């Protein structure tokens, strides 16, 4: 059971890290589109994008800590 929990936690952590990379790329490309078209985005949407990436980073850190805790408590590495 512990091993499958660790595997699931590993998948979740990888997903969160992937989301951070995609978010960063997305924000960069939105900025590029904004400059190219000279159409400014509403402030609320820019804030939403920043909040989204901030929350993802927080969740990713929590997930990494939880993964470490699972690995340590499993007794695989005495």
């Amino acid at each position: 059971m512990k091993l499958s929990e660790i595997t699931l936690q590993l998948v979740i952590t990888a997903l969160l890290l992937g989301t951070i990379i995609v978010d960063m790329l997305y924000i960069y490309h939105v900025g590029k589109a904004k400059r190219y078209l000279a159409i400014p985005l509403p402030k609320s949407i820019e804030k939403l994008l920043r909040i989204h990436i901030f929350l993802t980073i927080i969740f990713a850190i929590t997930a990494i800590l939880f993964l470490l805790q699972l690995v340590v408590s499993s007794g695989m590495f005495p």
Partner: protein
Amino acid sequence: MNYDFVFSPDFKKRFLSLPGEMIVLTTRTHAFALVMQIIFALFIAIFFCIISYVAFNFIDFSPFLLAESIAIILLVAAGILTKLFIDWYFHVYIVTTHKIVEVFFTPLFSHAINDVLLDQVRCTEVDVRTNNFLDEICNMGDVIITFDRPTHQDAFTIASIANPDMVGATLADALDVLRSNTSNELWMRNKKTNRLQLMEEIFPRASI
């Protein structure tokens, strides 16, 4: 929706290429189309939350993992909703006295810019169409402009916009005025100066 950006010098510099060219109309897809997509995405997110809740009830995993899974589903859903809005926001139709431009940007995925130079085509029809009951209620519809090109007939569709009747009438008027004002001028980009010039300026009639 606010279209104040059309007055910004950067926007004019980007989309107005000829001297004296003016913006006639700027429009987007109706917000109702966006709302339908958002509702659909929310339903999918709720469905996945329920699925993960039920799955975790069958497996004896820590509740923290369930919370994390639901958090991820909600985060991804929030990302998708933001993407839907930004895609909708960057899909703009711009009509100027010289051209019709459709700009469709989905940052990080794709982009398309379709131009129709009005002095190179002959506009034969401006049709307005609403497709169903919901379109009629929300005052949403398509404006189809048929162009007679030298080689074939082509239709430019301004799809799912608000106030299609008003937009269609404005477009028909603008195209009519343009047709009566347009002479047989031909613009060319001068390769040396990289500036648009009349054909006659580059090759004066006297020299031919």
